[in-house]
């Protein structure tokens, strides 16, 4: 048998070799992130038809809900503290925010892991998280293009039934900040969800379980304060209302004073928790990936 080995030499290079490229400065890194976002945006544009189909699902439901509530309000001024204009504005808010603040990285992440495509991203000198985030932000930028005409049209039709929210000037930047936090929170939760693919080969079952709770407690169906008390109680211990329900309540002027700051504080807490969670799960998953085959 031909067992022929080259003489084993056991010394390793003393000094790591330096690249034939200039060092990566902060400026170079920022340029890389910008290029990543630009490429992601171009790709998302390629899927604008698909995006439009998904968007249709997302905006039809709140509009139907508006129609339903308008029937409920026939002859009433108020349902559990929601005047008719508030309710219409609530669902218009859901229509816009649910589309813009709920990313879906779980599909892509689990697909990368399952197929091993992840390897291509792991060998690049830029964190995989940057790819995930850039891709989701890009899809949302396309959604902005889609949601704007629908919103304008809805306001034209429903114009006399809504009234502008009574917000102080500082309420608007606070609302925007809360929206960004909600998006980041949801993104982290769903990347974590996608990471289940490190351990489970078919993750869709877990996804459905997650969606059930997200749908109910994000406020998509109805304002959470209208839910039956025991059902709503569980929701207060879950992160989902901090995705867009809390920003929306802020926008509607229904969160004021101490309650407002408390809600924003808890949102921030959930955001930090979700960032830590996704980091831990991602790292543990990678250990498994590195062990199992890549």
């Amino acid at each position, binding site marked *: 048998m031909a067992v022929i080995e080259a003489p084993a030499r056991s010394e390793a290079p003393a000094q790591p070799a330096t690249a034939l490229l200039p060092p990566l400065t902060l400026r170079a890194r920022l340029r890389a992130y910008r290029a990543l976002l630009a490429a992601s945006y171009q790709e998302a544009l390629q899927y604008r038809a698909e995006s439009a189909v998904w968007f249709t699902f997302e905006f039809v439901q709140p509009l139907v809900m508006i129609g339903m509530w308008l029937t409920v309000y026939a002859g009433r001024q108020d349902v559990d503290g929601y005047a008719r204009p508030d309710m219409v504005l609530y669902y218009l808010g859901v229509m816009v925010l649910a589309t813009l603040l709920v990313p879906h990285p779980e599909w892509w992440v689990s697909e990368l892991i399952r197929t091993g495509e992840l*390897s291509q991203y792991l060998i690049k000198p830029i964190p995989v998280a940057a790819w995930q985030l850039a891709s989701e932000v890009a899809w949302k930028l396309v959604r902005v293009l889609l949601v704007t005409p629908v919103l304008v049209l809805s306001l034209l039709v429903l114009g006399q039934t809504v009234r502008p929210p009574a917000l102080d000037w500082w309420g608007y930047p606070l609302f925007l900040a809360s929206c960004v936090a909600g998006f980041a929170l949801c993104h982290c939760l769903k990347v974590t969800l996608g990471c289940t693919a490190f351990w489970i080969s078919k993750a869709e079952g877990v996804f459905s379980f997650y969606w059930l709770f997200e749908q109910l407690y994000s406020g998509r169906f109805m304002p959470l304060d209208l839910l039956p008390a025991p059902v709503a109680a569980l929701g207060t211990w879950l992160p989902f209302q901090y995705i867009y329900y809390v920003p929306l309540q802020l926008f509607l002027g229904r969160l004021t004073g101490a309650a407002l700051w408390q809600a924003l504080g808890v949102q921030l807490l959930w955001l930090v928790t979700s960032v830590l969670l996704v980091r831990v799960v991602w790292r543990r998953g990678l250990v498994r990936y590195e062990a199992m085959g890549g």
Partner: protein
Amino acid sequence: MAAVPGPAPAPSASVAGDAAPVIHVHRLCKYYRVYQKQPGLLGSLRGLVRRTYREVRAVEDVSFDIYAGELVGFLGPNGAGKTTTLKVLSGLLYPTSGRVSVLGYDPWKRQPEFQRQFSLVLGQKNQLWWDLPAIETFVLNKEIYGVPDGQFRRTLDELVELLDLERTLYVQVRKLSLGERMKCELAAALLHSPRVLFLDEPTIGLDVVMQQRIRDFIKEYNRRHGATILLTSHYMDDVKELCRRVIIINHGRLIYDGRLDEIVRRYADWKVLLAVFEQPVERARLEEFGEVVSYEPLQAAIRVPRSEIAARTGRLLAELPVLDVTIQETEVEDVIRRIFGGTADADAAAPASAGAT
């Protein structure tokens, strides 16, 4: 008595003056634990309670050093551990035991400074953005790797010229043929001028002309830039044309590390002739042309010494009612099977004297 060697002397003493290897692999082992499902529904249920695992020894005690500018062929049948080793070297897998260093780095730490200096091309995976023209991936890679504008332009021009990419650069990747895509994959992997290049099956699935083009390119790239290249391939021609040195592993173990001309001369000096006949031909007739590997009255495969292939094909065409004839290149698997003594041929039985150089 006292001849038992103690710990090896300090390496600096023994190889003074030698440059350090670019790739250093010392007693590398990589084991996987694979979940083993019992058959049937009952087995699935049992698996929920207690899982049974099987240990797969993908790489076992493999050592080699590769020096700057070498172009080494990495051979072995499917599942031999080639890709696993490349993945360890790229930092995608961490070693179960042993030591690995590439350019002086621990690959699995995945430091950006290391990652900017190598590339891994997996022939069956792509890094190009499917829905965008290849140039978009190139520009993105430029920024991700931090390639200065001037250098990027020069490198791109060179790659476009070498790979003949003018027309494919601006076409959506999904509309490219497999060969065009592979050329773009190579270009995408080389834009940051890596010192080390791992190529896993770069010619798989390509037609002969395209295989040749890729080969020419790899050879030229290695010559021009002195990049260190480790290449796996199923096609003997790839290896023959490109690599002076080959490393062969099977079942995770290193079985040969040495000059290629030695191994090809010794083990792969035949080709296989596939012939289809108009009328049934007797087996005995075919034995005259070489060793009959498989036989049916209307078609047969005959192993013929490489040096006689033309003469015997000519004779075959002249003497027998041949409808069609193809000459099959020897596959790496065949060579390896011979090294293992899988056939009873004399030349396979006596490789013990083959010395690595």
